[in-house]
């Protein structure tokens, strides 16, 4: 990434008039990314810029050619949330040739990017594990854990699961007895949880790597006659509205809330800073990273958390 810095320094960015920002997004069918682009739009508006969005529809090809579409229509800055980080370099070079700065939004990076707004997925996994450990407190009884992964090959998915398993490995009370893919969807999460519960009727905990699959899992619990109310623990990831609602109703234990909206805003601010030659205020300058913490939201904290979201 030091060669990244070099390249970054070398390129001169030009701010066109009218000021247009391009956002190439992972998949707008997913509420998470809807929130992300909402953040991008809002921040752009504040700063008198307009936004053009290209939806990758979960396709790596579309990621590349969609980003190029944006570059090809005279934008001043490009924000990309990549389906496939490794496919970024070509896009970034093309952008730089057009003197356009590139901000990577979440997921992962590669090549000569100018900024990276990161949601710390590995750490999110760790926090989920820590939440369980704290919850267990001093009790010595061992607990069976089921993990619902994201679709095979998902970069963030693997980080979230890795962080979770690594952190939990140190505590002998917890045993991961099942780890299945929920395909990032409600029905996928439902099926996975269903089968985990058939295989391990005495399961105590399910950690789902995104909220969609957590919502599915919650429904599977209901069907299997289990519930958070009588001691089962269900943790999701993302902080989507429907998950938060379930937490409020006490049907889900917690979710590892990311702040997609905030990330979107930050991405725009960083891009504008780069254009104006101002300091982007990186959390970590060598990796050009704007670091975005993730927070555990539980029944206790959910009220404040949602309130916090409302006031913007």
């Amino acid at each position, binding site marked *: 990434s030091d060669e990244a810095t070099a390249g970054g320094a070398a390129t001169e960015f030009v701010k066109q008039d009218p000021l247009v920002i391009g956002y190439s997004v992972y998949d*707008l*069918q*997913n*509420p998470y990314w*809807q929130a992300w682009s909402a953040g991008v739009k809002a921040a752009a508006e504040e700063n008198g810029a307009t936004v053009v969005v290209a939806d990758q529809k979960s396709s790596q090809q579309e990621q590349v050619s969609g980003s190029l579409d944006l570059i090809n229509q005279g934008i001043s800055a490009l924000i990309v949330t990549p389906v496939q980080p490794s496919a970024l370099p070509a896009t970034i070079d093309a952008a730089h040739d057009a003197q356009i700065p590139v901000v990577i939004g979440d997921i992962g990076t590669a090549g000569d990017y100018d900024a990276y707004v990161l949601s710390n997925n590995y750490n999110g996994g760790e926090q989920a594990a820590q939440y369980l450990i704290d919850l267990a407190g001093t009790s010595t009884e061992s607990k069976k854990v089921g993990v619902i*992964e994201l*679709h*095979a090959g998902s970069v963030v998915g693997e980080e979230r699961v890795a962080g979770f398993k690594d952190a939990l490995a140190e505590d002998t009370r917890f045993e991961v*007895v*099942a*780890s*299945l*893919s929920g395909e990032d*969807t*409600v*029905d996928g999460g*439902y*099926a*996975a949880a*269903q*089968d*985990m*519960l*058939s*295989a391990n*009727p005495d399961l105590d905990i399910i950690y789902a790597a995104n909220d*969609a699959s957590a*919502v*599915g899992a919650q*429904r599977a619990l*209901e*069907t*299997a006659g289990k519930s958070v109310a009588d001691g089962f623990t269900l943790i999701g990831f993302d902080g*989507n*509205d*429907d998950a938060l*609602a379930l937490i409020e109703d006490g049907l889900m234990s917690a979710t590892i809330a990311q702040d997609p909206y905030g990330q979107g805003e930050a991405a725009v601010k960083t891009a504008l800073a780069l254009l104006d030659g101002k300091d982007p205020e990186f959390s970590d300058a060598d990796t050009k990273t704007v670091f975005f913490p993730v927070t555990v939201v539980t029944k206790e904290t959910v009220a404040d958390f949602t309130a916090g979201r409302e006031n913007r």
Partner: protein
Amino acid sequence: MLDTSKAQLDAVASIEHEREESARRGARAARRQSLLQKLGIIVPFALVLLAGIVLVPSFLSASNITNMLVNGAILAITAYGMTMVIALRGIDLSVGSSQAVAACVVAVSVNAWGLVPGILSGIAAAIVLGLLNGVIVTKFRVPAFIATLATLGIYRGVALLFTDGAPVMITDTAFRSIATSSLFGIPVPFILSVLVGAGFWFVLEKMRFGKHLVAVGGSPESATDSGINVKRIQLIAYIAAGATAGLAGVLLASQLGSVNGSLSTGLELQAIAVVVLGGTSMAGGRGNIVGTFLASLLLAMINAGLNLLNVPSFYQYIALGVLLVFALSVDSAQRAAVRRVFEGRVA
């Protein structure tokens, strides 16, 4: 020269004997034909079931059996309509999207107007979508593949716009319990799939419509020349496909309690797969509802089995692939065997 000569009288007299000969051989051939059609899926089905019972812990647990029956049933219902469409040489790639629309409409309208109107409007929506498919195919003469590929996109867009891309939680507990409750210990969706399946079987095997459907699929020229209204048959089949996708969508919505515009993406491949697995030929002219039903359960067993064994997702791809291929190779092996038996060779 064709005067009724002695020879001809004899010919007429003793022709009966020849007929017996040929009828014997022909009847045997007919038996072979139908046997090959029906047998198809049963053997692989039995084998997988057996493997499940032997190899997979808690495969026979009450909860797993229920899950398999319900999941199999929901897939089967979608596939019934697909069976009809494929039997007449068509295809419906839009089932997944239609199902999503139906599920979303149900969710929203159950929340708004309650159980019954909600369900009805959901299925109604799907029927309209099926009708639209039928119209595009028959009226605008667009090849089924393209027509329904197009509506696959259109309906998906409709579902997403309708829900604004946001998930819809279903509050009505009565509705949520449809898919999860049972009668006499049998899950309601499964009972439904049996009833609907029986209905489709009856229509295909016993009713005029069924004969006409097979004719259209087996030999469109013959069908038209026989004065059959081909377009009408096609229209009805596509409506049926929409309706079953919708009904399955209702059950899915009830099962999940929460729906969204991306529901059932990629369902078309699964549905077609079970139809073909069930012994319905994509060349048209042969619809096997029972096969479709069994194949759906087979797929449900495979998916559940792999998960119960906690097979990592990477390896699940391999396993699913192998099992699909295996299922049909067993089928073709047994076809070969049966053929040998009938041709008098040792099996």
